[in-house]
């Protein structure tokens, strides 16, 4: 088969400030299973980009291998995309970002891609504070190879054939927090109202932004006994922090201002309004975030929302003292020292 374009009719759809409808932010037809959580994440990305009025060509999509990694073809067909090798999207994103930091880098990965072969690259991209949105579509299972447990499968969670997983899971959010990520969120593909603002906030965060999205696999991991099924996730889903994103240009109304929401100005534009749903949870307290996730695991609840935010960290560009003008735009005469400099330099080798 070949990739199929979607029919394009948007006459009656609303337009954003660039005069584009959501259809302008879509990609080719998804080839994932009907009901796959990943398609909901794709839709949320389309929605978020459209609402942010970002030009499609201002984004670069990066991914590795797996069901999740395929989805970069299913949104924003007017953006460049690169679908590389298993687990190594962060390295491609690092190189691409280093030479042009003006683009919005969106990495789509999965638990198989990020937490096994890709675990090292995931960790080191966080350590470098690479400025990107990293969406981890987490379903606890390998779909394309038909149902093996992944490294995020919970202890005791059952495979489709009823076999329990007997290895401890890797929690990408806990890992990201311990590694020093400045933006750590967990969401559920089934709750677009939570996911869309988180995507917007992650895009506007200057640094590494992780959104771990529980995104059930309808074919291999949606049965009784699985802790990553739709039914299980709906049952144990527990938003800790409610996030709203307000673009700069919009007036912040009294409704937001007076309800005790925490306001955070984002470096790349816009403002976040964070409302606690649990009375004593502070999304700026890293230790508390780690503790909550680690201890919280015992009650089976899936705590979601923007779990941790730190806007004050230098990103990779700043740490490398890179110029404002992207390296890939620097004219050659600024890079080549010339014949005279070469002659002078060689005195030291005489």
């Amino acid at each position, binding site marked *: 088969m070949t990739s199929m374009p979607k029919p394009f009719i948007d006459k009656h759809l609303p337009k954003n400030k660039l005069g584009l409808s959501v259809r302008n932010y879509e990609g080719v037809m998804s080839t994932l299973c009907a009901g796959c959580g990943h398609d909901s994440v794709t839709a949320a990305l389309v929605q978020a980009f459209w609402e942010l009025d970002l030009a499609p060509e201002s984004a670069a999509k990066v991914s590795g291998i797996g069901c999740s990694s395929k989805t970069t073809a299913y949104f924003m067909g007017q*953006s460049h995309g690169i*679908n590389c090798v298993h687990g190594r999207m962060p390295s491609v994103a690092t*190189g691409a970002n*280093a030479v042009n930091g003006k683009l919005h880098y969106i990495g789509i990965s999965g638990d198989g891609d990020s937490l096994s072969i890709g675990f090292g*690259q995931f960790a080191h991209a966080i350590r470098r504070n690479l400025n990107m949105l990293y969406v981890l579509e987490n379903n606890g299972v390998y779909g394309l190879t038909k149902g093996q447990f992944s490294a995020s499968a919970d202890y005791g969670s059952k495979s489709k054939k009823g076999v329990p997983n007997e290895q401890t899971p890797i929690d990408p959010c806990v890992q990201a927090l311990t590694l020093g990520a400045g933006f750590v969120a967990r969401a559920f593909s089934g709750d677009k109202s939570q996911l869309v603002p988180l995507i917007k906030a992650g895009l506007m965060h200057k640094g590494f932004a992780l959104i771990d999205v529980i995104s059930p696999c309808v074919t291999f991991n949606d049965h009784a006994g699985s802790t990553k099924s739709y039914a299980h996730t709906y049952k144990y889903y527990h938003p800790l922090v409610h996030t709203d994103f307000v673009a700069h240009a919009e007036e912040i109304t009294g409704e937001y201002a007076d309800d005790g929401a925490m306001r955070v100005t984002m470096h790349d534009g816009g403002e976040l309004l964070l409302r606690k749903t649990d009375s004593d949870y502070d999304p700026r307290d890293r230790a508390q975030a780690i503790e909550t996730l680690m201890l919280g695991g015992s009650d089976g609840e899936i705590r979601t929302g923007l779990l941790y935010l730190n806007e004050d960290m230098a990103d990779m560009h700043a740490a490398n*003292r890179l*110029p404002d003008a992207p390296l890939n735009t620097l004219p050659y005469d600024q890079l080549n020292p010339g014949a005279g400099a070469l002659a002078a*330099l060689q005195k030291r080798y005489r």
Partner: protein
Amino acid sequence: MKDVVETPGEVRVNDFVIKIGNVNGTGSASANGLLMKAIFRMGVPVVGKNLFPSNIQGLPTWYEIRITRDSYFARSGTADFVVAMNAETYARDLAEVSPGGFLLYDSTWPRPDLHGRTDITAIGVPLARMCNEQFDNARTRVLMKNMAYVGAVAGLTGIDVEVIRGLVTEMFGTKAHLIDANMKAIELGLNYVREHYPDPLPLRVEAMDGTAGHILIDGNTAAALGCVYAGATFGAWYPITPSTSLMDGFKSFCEKFRVDKDTGEKKFCIIQAEDELASIGMAIGAGWNGARAFTPTSGPGISLMSEFIGFAYYGEVPVVLFDVQRAGPSTGLPTRTQQCDLTLAAYASHGDTKHILVFPANPKECFEMAVQSFDLAERFQTPVFFMTDLDIGMNDWMIPELTWDDSYQPDRGKVLGKDELEAIEKFYRYEDRDGDAIPYRTLPGVHPKGAYFTRGSGHNWKGGYTEDSDEYKEVLDRLTQKWKNAAAAVPAPVIIKCGKPARRAIVSVGGCDGAVREAMDRMAADGVHLDYLRVRGFPFSQEVDDFIAGYDEVFVVEQNRDAQLRTLLINETSADKTRLIPVLDYAGMAANPKFIVEGITAHLEIVGDAA
């Protein structure tokens, strides 16, 4: 063994080898470098080879300085004057001295074990005792012992002490106390030999005019300089011997030339990756995004990078890999040289993959071919392998001064800009619009019309995913054609005719060059005349094919066990493999003419033909 210098035999001026045996981590590298540079400054051509262990401190290390008035540039494989500073290797060092040669040892302690040979002259200098008397702390004593033998060697062979003083002054700059201390140690050795061995050795260094317009530089530094001049802005790497100094060089040149003095902003980005899996990914990401990007590594790194290399080949992403080869397999001998990644690089990655390779033979070509590698990578939108080795990369070579043509403009290949995209109806990433098998590419962020999806999975000429056999094959066939077309663009082979009718020839590659040329001279003196072609690029150009066809037999000289260059010639030219005779050296040392002369002579004896 004779303990005094007796009537000298044949006097050899500017044509002998000094070999210094020492202990790694004692500062011997700067002492040896000083000796070599002093000879070079006297106008005498030199070849320096550092033989070092995979160790930080304590294991044996050797440094060879070949003084060669005839400007040969390989090792000679002999040692006429051995400086034995490492008790652990005395026996071996003694055995290596050429008959009639000399051995300098530290006579602070008696060395009865040095009395095993009567055909050489041993020269005792109490280096440790003198330094212990003159210097206070232990570390200084160790360092200065090395400087003391520099003085002794200089005194015995006639190396100009004023030249040494000049170099020491340059080395330590404003630190007068260090200049004084080092010169004091040098004079200890010098004065001792003047007093005790007043007659000069028959091995002499005399000033000549053989190094004008030349520099001493290692290939990694020269390649790094090439990256700067090519306009590379992104390098990712993971430290690995023997490639590390390439990125060190790039960093230091960029800090000199590419940092904005007012803002401190850097017009380059170097990332030390977590491993080679990541460093190649980063370089590919940067190349995909339109920067000139590279990664330096060695064989183990290429093995790790292989999956990504196939991705860049199939997705047509420009990137340059510097493979500073070392002896394998596996970890192998990390500090020994070989040309053992030729077939690995030529076909790196699973599936049908073929790459573009360039083969520099010396630091001058490292500089030039580094620039060419970026041009080739962007023009052909594919990974390019720069195949150097430890000998070229880490040893100082005497080469003509590097020159630069200010009219050079980088070949950025076919990249459609904003206006061009605006003007066309529709862009297809892998469309062969010009019939030269090279499609156009676009960069992210330039124009929505330029958007495409780079994938390692099956794709058609439009860039769309496909599992259709015909569409898949169409792209694969174009890639083959593109690779073939590169044969005319890679650096052309160098052909040296012996000037006599020759039925046989040599084909070789890279750092074997000096040894091959010297072997040709030696054999010509015995009446064996051979022509020579050195390949400098892969795929092989038609010239390589034509050259091989012109001889009854061709000796393929290379530094690996499995005759990898020969394998590539069999695979990729029409050469008859029975006429390609392997001449192999895989001991891990820099090439010397001996293995070539012996290999060829042995073959000629077997076939009963000396012509």
